[in-house]
């Protein structure tokens, strides 16, 4: 049982780890100094949350002794993040749309996890929600600004939305682990967040005068360890230090 909880924590942490890593790539490359710092702050918040999940997971796990092993020494197919988090930054429109679509999910998820009957998970959620409320405020603000901005910014935002939209549903698609943890009162079945998620996201996108894409097909597989072609590149960046210098410490 403890090992199952560890796996669940790793699934939760992987979204934060991979999105945090993606945002970290923008350090020094943001569109303006202020935005650069804001994105890096979000990245660091997410990595901080990852550490909380992985430290707890390492306590519970049969397979790992510490957080570094979990973060840096797994194979691609052992990562459980959703595809949305591994999408490339491309440009600021893609970055901010991806962030908004994740933040809204993240906020609903943590709000629910704050009722977990696992005290430690509850504590992690309660601490993280404050950070995530701000992330959402930031990304939502930019989606509205640029969607309802100039002609160029609107076109770019619409393009980004059309690209990223098909990765939203996976966030709300429950894995077997999600369902099991929900049954135990520990975790959340994201399917229960689905209605509220799309309602909230669509109302912001409409306010931003963006058109909501009508996709029939949505990506999936991340929660089962099947990743997009971008993922290998992320892992090589993320892991090379720990693989080149095993057990390296700061």
């Amino acid at each position, binding site marked *: 049982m403890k090992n199952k909880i560890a796996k669940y924590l790793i699934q939760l942490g992987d979204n934060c780890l991979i999105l945090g890593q993606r945002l970290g790539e923008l350090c020094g490359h943001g569109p*303006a*100094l202020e935005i650069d710092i*804001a994105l890096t702050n979000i990245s660091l918040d997410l990595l901080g949350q990852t550490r909380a999940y992985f430290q707890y997971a390492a306590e519970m796990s049969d397979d790992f002794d510490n957080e570094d092993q979990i973060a840096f020494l797994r194979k691609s197919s052992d990562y459980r993040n959703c595809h949305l988090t591994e999408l490339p930054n491309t440009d600021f429109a893609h970055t901010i749309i991806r962030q908004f679509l994740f933040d809204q999910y993240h906020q609903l998820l943590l709000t629910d996890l704050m009722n977990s009957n696992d005290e430690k998970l509850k504590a992690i959620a309660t601490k993280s929600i404050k950070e995530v409320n701000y992330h959402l405020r930031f990304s939502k603000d930019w989606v509205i600004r640029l969607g309802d901005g100039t002609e160029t910014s609107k076109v770019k935002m619409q393009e980004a939305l059309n690209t990223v939209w098909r990765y939203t549903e996976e966030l709300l698609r429950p894995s077997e682990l999600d369902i099991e943890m929900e049954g135990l009162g520990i975790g959340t079945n994201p399917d229960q967040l689905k209605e509220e998620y799309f309602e909230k996201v669509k109302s912001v996108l409409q306010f931003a005068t963006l058109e909501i894409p009508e996709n029939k097909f949505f990506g999936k597989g991340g929660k089962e360890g099947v990743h997009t072609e971008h993922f290998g590149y992320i892992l090589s960046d993320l892991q090379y230090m720990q693989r080149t210098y095993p057990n390296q410490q700061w």
Partner: protein
Amino acid sequence: MSNKNWPLWEVFIRSKSGLHHLHAGSLHAADADMALANARDVYTRRNEGVSIWVVESKNIVANDPSKSEEFFEPASDKVYRHPTFYEMPDELSHI
């Protein structure tokens, strides 16, 4: 979206309740909301503040540096304007 078009804002931060706001620095932002968000991200990330003020730099009125002689020098030889002869208890801080 060029930084050139974003006006400059001055940021003031109060580090603890009871203290006054101090000038922390400046930044670029398109409007007041963005200035406040940017100030939060740029100037309070190491837990520096409990309150932020932002004001667009063009709204600050400053004295003319070339006239600083007549502005400030007349006060420089009037030491009796400092209340240095009061004895202050040690416990008092922020004076």
